[in-house]
């Protein structure tokens, strides 16, 4: 029989004060709920290309919906129960509190399973996590948005923001390159962006087909588009999203043009398991992509080991 005098009482971690505890473990316990996801209903699925779909999500619980806020550039962990969770950038407007949009490419285990679910299914999201594009700091400047391939997905959130606050910005150029014309995403928004939001849109593909050439579309690498624009380096910010190899060329070019490194922003991708700076999967040098990133200015990236 245990001697009751020496039995250690069990301590509930949600209770703030327990005088008998040894060290001070009370800090930040208000953020305890990080492993519980918000349940979302998939309200709409749009097939963009063979490999990409746009998922529209609505947080089920009204209270959770009301408190969920994010900044352009942040990502969330999307959980498909039974399969796992993956980091996905939020691709919708940060002022839209009704729906979230996620543009997802079928890449592996979880994303393939996501491609089999239908509208009405329930998933969970954790987050938002990570750093964001400094939209306020960029106000009053020209913005150069450069997207390669799926890089357009994380660019959509800042783009929405810019469009909603169009008067705060000067010239906006969107450079968008993909491999083939069929891979161009969000084409239905191009006209709106150009006509209503006065964004100068430049697209380029690596391999154009006959139809593309017929419409006099450009072919080549994304860097070829630089000939079409004039950049006022003193008054410009750049946001670059795409495969790592693209950073090197694009940012290298902009650097040469004279845009300061701390005015160029990139979004990095690494394998993530937790999104909370604990699993150490997404380390780049000594920096966590999930907490310190995914959005970094180019100066920081240059100083990270193994970044690109």
């Amino acid at each position: 029989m245990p001697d009751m005098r020496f039995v250690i009482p069990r301590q509930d971690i949600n209770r703030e004060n327990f005088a008998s505890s040894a060290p001070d473990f009370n800090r930040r316990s208000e953020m305890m709920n990080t492993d519980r996801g918000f349940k979302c209903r998939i309200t709409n699925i749009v097939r963009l290309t063979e490999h990409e779909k746009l998922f529209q999500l609505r947080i089920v619980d009204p209270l959770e919906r009301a408190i969920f806020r994010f900044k352009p550039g942040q990502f969330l962990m999307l959980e498909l129960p039974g399969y796992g969770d993956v980091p996905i950038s939020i691709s919708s407007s940060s002022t839209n509190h009704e729906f979230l949009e996620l543009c997802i490419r079928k890449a592996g285990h979880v994303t393939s399973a996501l491609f089999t679910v239908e509208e009405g299914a329930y998933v969970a999201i954790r987050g938002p996590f990570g750093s964001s594009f400094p939209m306020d700091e960029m106000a009053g400047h020209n913005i150069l948005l450069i997207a390669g391939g799926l890089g357009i997905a994380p660019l959509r959130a800042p783009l929405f923001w810019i469009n909603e606050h169009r008067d705060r910005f000067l010239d906006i150029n969107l450079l968008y390159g993909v491999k083939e014309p069929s891979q161009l995403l969000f084409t239905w928004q191009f006209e709106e962006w150009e006509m209503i939001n006065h964004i100068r849109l430049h697209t380029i593909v690596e391999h154009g087909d006959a139809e593309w050439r017929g419409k006099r579309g450009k072919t080549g690498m994304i860097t070829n588009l630089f000939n079409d624009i004039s950049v006022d380096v003193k008054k410009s910010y750049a946001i670059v999203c795409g495969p790592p190899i693209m950073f090197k060329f694009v940012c290298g070019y902009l650097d040469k043009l004279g845009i300061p490194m701390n005015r160029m922003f990139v979004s990095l991708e690494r394998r993530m398991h937790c999104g909370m700076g604990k699993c150490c999967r997404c380390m780049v040098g000594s920096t966590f992509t999930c907490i310190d990133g995914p959005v970094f200015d180019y100066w920081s990236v240059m100083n990270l080991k193994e970044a690109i």
Partner: protein
Amino acid sequence: MNIAKLKIASFDFTCCEGCQLQLANRESTLSDFLELLDIRNFREILSEKHDDYDIALIEGSISRQDEVERLLKIREQAKVLVAFGTCACFGGINSLKNRFRMDETVREIYGDMAIETLPVKKISDVVKVDLSIPGCPVAKEEVERIIVSLATSSLVTLPKYPVCVECKQQLNTCLFDLGEICLGPITRAGCNAVCPTGKTACLGCRGPAEELNMPAFLELVRERKLSHSDLQEKLAFYNAFEPVATDET
């Protein structure tokens, strides 16, 4: 999650049938496990036979011509052919026979009786294998996990790291510290380090871990002055590793 049952069949070749037997183990989840399956052919427990299976579990290695033909037929039918157990994946202990001449081997056991036998082959020497589940015997827990993954069309994976990870998680004393050679550092995990946990050396039944570092492993055995012949006997036991140089230096 409602999913169609997997049309599965189980076939045994040259082996002890211990891997098949594992399918009937883990009694606590057995009925749930069988719920996932539509067993079309399984001689060991079932009298009916049907030939419309999608998944074929192949147990054992190949050591006679009629087995080759039977296997080729199964390959034609099966959408997913699974090498089930170490004998199927690597040849297993049966391969120890290959060190001897076949005619002498037969004479030794059967005298002058005419018995056919071929040098032992693993399944992938004969047909294409879609999925390998190693283990002597296979671990039912892993089989269950893989079958559930197949049923839910999830990713089927085996650990890529070596047994030492799981061994340390069991707080075992390393067998090298007890003066024995253990193949844990070069063998694929997934068995929960059963052998080192029972304090006997890992003999590598799950085959090589991914990107194993054989030179470093050999160096380790040399440095600790452990017996080279013991090492070779262990490496050869399941035929899962490339033979190593014989010099005793």
